Structures are given as structure tokens and as C-alpha cells.
């Protein structure tokens, strides 16, 4: 799959079909990859596909000029489709290189299983449904479901919804119920307890805005948190204001969020943000029978108005 990607990417640049390739290359730390954004056909040799391709590269489509060949997993492809729906990118300017995804490894889960920091591990290898963690010369094997990101376990569409080139055979959905357990647990809590839970979690927020900045659905030129006249939310990281920020962000990305899990992964202080975004994703599904980024010709959920759908007072 990796070899094919490299030759396709090189050919696209060589033949002038795209100006840019956006993909993954090896990162500078163990078990990491990093976005590769390049115009140079020789860089195609650096492209990788492995269980650590965490980023949602659709995020880089906004602001890039020219035609782009972009590498996507299932969730990322839906973010691309969502951006097309919102007229943020034009389909004809894209060559989508689809990876049938089998899930991405969550290093914090690996650390918990191994009882060691990621830096202390010698190797993490995946073979099908098993993962082997090597540390201090010893190998331990686990089912892959124990180390995949929750959003990967919950994934319904691991094969890209939209692509020009599919780099492998389609992969089956995981839709593992384990992934929803923590969200279900929160749903079961009494409102006061749930309030207490989020107070504790959001007290850690430092307002780095990584959750917003890694999110392809957060494409506003100017975010409401930065408005000063009026000031919608206080700029200092007080938990109540952090909550307003997160709730508003959630409503803004409703119908655009593809549950790619990037907000939660990027958070440096471990706030379980996906417990909010996935809840919103499910609410959107339930209320509107809508899933983000499924069809590029569909109208976007919340920026679209039809008279027959409107509430009485609205008409």
C-alpha cells in the first residue's frame, strides 16, 4: 500500500496533476508520523502508511493554493467531503488518495498496558488483529482493540467515502461497543454529577486551542472566543468559560464533526473532549438522520434552510 502511495504521489506531481501532496512521513520521535506538505516529487519516497498516522490532514486543505493530492483515512475523507459541502474546497482541485483504515494506535493506551512511557518502549508492531509491545527485550501481545483509539473502535466507515485512488481493499467497520462505554456512562449520570465531572475535567484547560486548530470542521477565519466586542467568552482559562468554549465549539461543528478524534488526541492536558463531540455526533444522527461528510452533493446540515422544515415561528 505504501509503495503504491509513493508511486501514485510521485506520478501526480510529475504529471502536473497536482501542485501539492499532503501525506504522512516518519515523525522525529518513536511511534510518530508527521504531516508532509510538499511540492517536490522526490519527497514522495518519504510517504508512509502505518498504525501511527494520527493527523486528520483535511485540516491543511484550508488556505492552501492550487490542486492537492491528499492522503485520507475514512474519517479524514468525510472531513474533506464536509469541506466540499461548505464550499471551502473544490472537488476538482483534489486528488484524494484513500487509505482503507484499520485503526490508529493510541500511545496512551499502549503506555497503560505496558506500564511504561512511550519513550521507554523498544517497539510496537501490529499484525492483523494483534499488537506486540516490546520493552526491555521482552515481548507482550495484546488484541489490537486494546490499543486503538476509541474513535477508531467506534468507526463505522474506515474506508474513505470519497476518493480518486483507493490504495487497498476496503476494510470492514469496527463499530466496537466498548468505544461508547464512557459516553454511555456520562449519559447515565445525574445532571449535577455530570456537571461536576466536566468542572473537574475542564479546570485543566489552558486555552491552547489545539482542539480547535487540529479540527478541519473549525474553519472560521475568526473564532468567537477571540471576539472582544462583544466578548462572548472570557479569554482566561476559567473552567466555566472553558465549558462555554467547548459547548459552543461543539454546536458550531455539529453536522461537520466526523468523530476523527483529533481534538481529544491533541489536548495536552487529557480532557476527554470526544465525550462531548461524539455525543453531539450521535445527537445530530438522531435528530436529523444526518452523518457528516457522507456525500459531497448533500447540503450541509446547519447552514441549509428549507421552508417545509422550519418551526412555525420561523416561517
Amino acid at each position, binding site marked *: 500500500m505504501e509503495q503504491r502511495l509513493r508511486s501514485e504521489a510521485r506520478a501526480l506531481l510529475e504529471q502536473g496533476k497536482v501542485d501539492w501532496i499532503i501525506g504522512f512521513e516518519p*515523525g*522525529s*520521535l*518513536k511511534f*510518530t*508520523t*508527521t*504531516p*508532509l*506538505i510538499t511540492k517536490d516529487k522526490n519527497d514522495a519516497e518519504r510517504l508512509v502508511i502505518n498504525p501511527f498516522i494520527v*493527523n486528520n490532514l483535511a*485540516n*491543511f486543505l484550508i488556505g492552501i493554493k492550487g490542486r492537492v493530492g491528499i492522503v485520507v483515512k475514512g474519517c479524514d475523507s468525510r472531513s474533506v467531503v464536509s469541506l466540499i459541502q461548505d464550499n471551502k474546497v473544490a472537488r476538482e482541485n483534489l486528488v484524494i488518495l484513500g487509505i482503507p483504515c484499520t485503526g490508529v494506535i493510541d500511545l496512551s493506551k499502549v503506555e497503560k498496558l505496558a506500564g*511504561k*512511557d*512511550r*519513550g*521507554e518502549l523498544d517497539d510496537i508492531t501490529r499484525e492483523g488483529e494483534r499488537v506486540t509491545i516490546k520493552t526491555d527485550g521482552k515481548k507482550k501481545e495484546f488484541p489490537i482493540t486494546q490499543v486503538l483509539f476509541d474513535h477508531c473502535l467506534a468507526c463505522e466507515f474506515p474506508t474513505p467515502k470519497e476518493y480518486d485512488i483507493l490504495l487497498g481493499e476496503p476494510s470492514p467497520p469496527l463499530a466496537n461497543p466498548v468505544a461508547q462505554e464512557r459516553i454511555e456512562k456520562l449519559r447515565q449520570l445525574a445532571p449535577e454529577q455530570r456537571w461536576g465531572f466536566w468542572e*473537574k*475535567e475542564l*479546570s*485543566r484547560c*489552558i*486555552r*491552547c*486551542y*489545539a482542539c*480547535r*486548530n*487540529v479540527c478541519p470542521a473549525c474553519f472560521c477565519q475568526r473564532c468567537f472566543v*477571540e471576539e*472582544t466586542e462583544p466578548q462572548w467568552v*472570557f*479569554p*482566561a*482559562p*476559567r473552567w466555566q468559560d472553558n465549558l462555554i468554549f467547548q459547548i459552543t465549539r461543539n454546536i458550531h461543528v455539529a453536522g461537520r464533526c466526523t468523530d476523527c478524534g*483529533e481534538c481529544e*488526541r*491533541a489536548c*495536552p*492536558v*487529557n*480532557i476527554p473532549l470526544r465525550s462531548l463531540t461524539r455525543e453531539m455526533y450521535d445527537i445530530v444522527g438522531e435528530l436529523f438522520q444526518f452523518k457528516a461528510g457522507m456525500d459531497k452533493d448533500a447540503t450541509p446540515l446547519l447552514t441549509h434552510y428549507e421552508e417545509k422544515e422550519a418551526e412555525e415561528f420561523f416561517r
Partner: protein
Amino acid sequence: MANKKISKKDIGKLLNQWGQQFAVFTPSREDGVAKMARWEGKDTGFLGWYWNTVVPPKANFLPPMEEMFRFQKDKEGYRIELPPDGGRQLIFGIRPCDARAMKIIDANFKELYQDPYYLNKRKSALLVGLGCTNPGESCFCTSMGVSPAESSDVDLMLTDIGDELLIEPVSAAGKELITKSRGLKAANKTDEAKAKEVKKASYNKVSRKLNTEGIADRLLASFDDQDFWEKVAAKCISCGICTLLCPTCYCFDINDELTRQQGTRFRSWDSCGFPVYTKMPMENPRAEKWKRVRQKVCHKYEFYPMSLDVIACTGCGRCIRLCPVNWDITQVLNSVPAKTKVGK
């Protein structure tokens, strides 16, 4: 003063002892993220930690959010109320990189101008350093003149020598603290030799290297090399992780919260990576991302050494480890062109 030692299992008792005089902070994951937290008398697991705290100890002196004062308007005019003093802090288990970082912030908040909020906390605090025995993969302290298990920037320095910790007094305040502390034993020659070995081994384990030679000059020469900076900035997402969680970054924003007749003034962490940075007077002169990335790099490795004779980086590696896109400062700096094409 001769060095002392203490058994690791007695550390809790020592911290409790110090807790009667100081607000003791230790590395902790209790709050869901690794940071300096109030010592609760239980968990000394941090003694075996591989990596550093995610939130740097600067947060104890320049908190993410801080009340500066409250104000109230009445018939006589405005009344101002200052927040209460937080008491003396003892930061236990600070790493040499972070202790050096405090010195670097001092250069700005103590020497260039006096910041009362920072200095009130800083002046009265004691730093008890804990050397790394197993530096992290993202660490590059040895390139920045910091040794992972040695420090002259603390009051006491601790070295892991197996079941015990060697305690070296560094400052006068550190010596005084040792004299007053109960339960410490005198260190013998074997302990000293062990500590020396640990320090050397730890130093040699730091594998990430940054070539700092002539770095300020190279950056100066590359300042207008837009191609280089655009390439370097391409994958940056302009979040605040690498600056807010940098132990030497000190930028802050000030905001008032107002109701009818009263209000509170807060200051909170700010980042030069944000597009809205310095918007309060008028505009951010660095609207383009590549200019903001350049500013972050140049401030640390060019402007700081030029004006204060020290690079504002201690190689703690947080910015590398925590970056959502693996933007690696060592790769960037090692790739700064020796001579720029621009204007030549």
C-alpha cells in the same frame, strides 16, 4: 557543608516535615495531567517517573490564570483590593531544565523589570531539584548547557543512587533547610561515587542534539528567507501548546471582568503563535503563520541571546513531545541555512 542522603521510602516523611513550613508541591498525575501539585502526603511515585511534568513548574510562579486585583466604585471613588499572599512554596522534584528555565524567566521578570506578582512567589520559594536518570527521547538539554542530573539553579539537588537519594545543598537557603530537617543521614564516599556515576550516565543518555553554534547569527541571516520559514511553518497549526507549556515562555494577556460597579483584573498565558496576539493595541504585525513561527524561534534563539546573553530554551523537549503535528524545534534549527540566499 557535607552532602546528605535519605532513603526513598522516607521521602514522604520529609515532605510532611517541610509541609509545616512551606506549601509543598511535587510532580503528580492526580489531576489527570502531570504537573506540580500540592503534596497530599501519599504518592511518591514521581521518584520513578521517566518523563517530566506536562505543565512546567513556571505555572507555580506565573499561573495560567491569575487575579491581579479587584476594584470597586463607590461614593468616594475606586477602591482596589489586592489578592492575598499565597505563602512560601517549596517545589520538590523540579528537573534541571525547568530550574534553569526559571533563571531565564528571572532575566525578564526580575532583571529587566520587576514583576511583583511573579517576584512575590519566586523570591520566597525553594526549589529542590531531582536529577533525571533516564532522560526522555525528546530531551536535548545537554545541547543547551543543561545537565540532566546537575543544577546550580536550585536550592537543593537530589540524585537517585538506588534505594536512596543523595542530597546536595546548593544555595544558602538550601543549606539552612538541610540543617533544620530531621531524618537525613550523612552521605559517604560510596554514595558520592554512585551519584557521580549516575550523573555521567544520565548526561550520556541524552541523544537528541541541537547545534547552537552561531545560531543567533544564522537566524539573523535567515530572517528574510520567506521560502525557508514558509516551509518550516507549513504543518504548524498555530495552537499554543509549544509556547504555553514552554518553561521559559512568559507572555501574558490582561483582561478585566466587569459588572456594574466592580470588576476584577486577570492576567493569563498568551502565545505569540496566536493570530490575535497583540491585537489589543491594534493589529498583530505577524498576520501570516510563517512570521509567527519565525518570531517564536527567533525570540528564543536570536533575540534573547542578543539582549540577555542566554538562549531562552533549556532543551526540556515539551514542545516536541506535546506537539499535535510533531513540529520539532531541533530539526528546524538544525536546518537553518548557514548562509541565506536572500539579498545576496
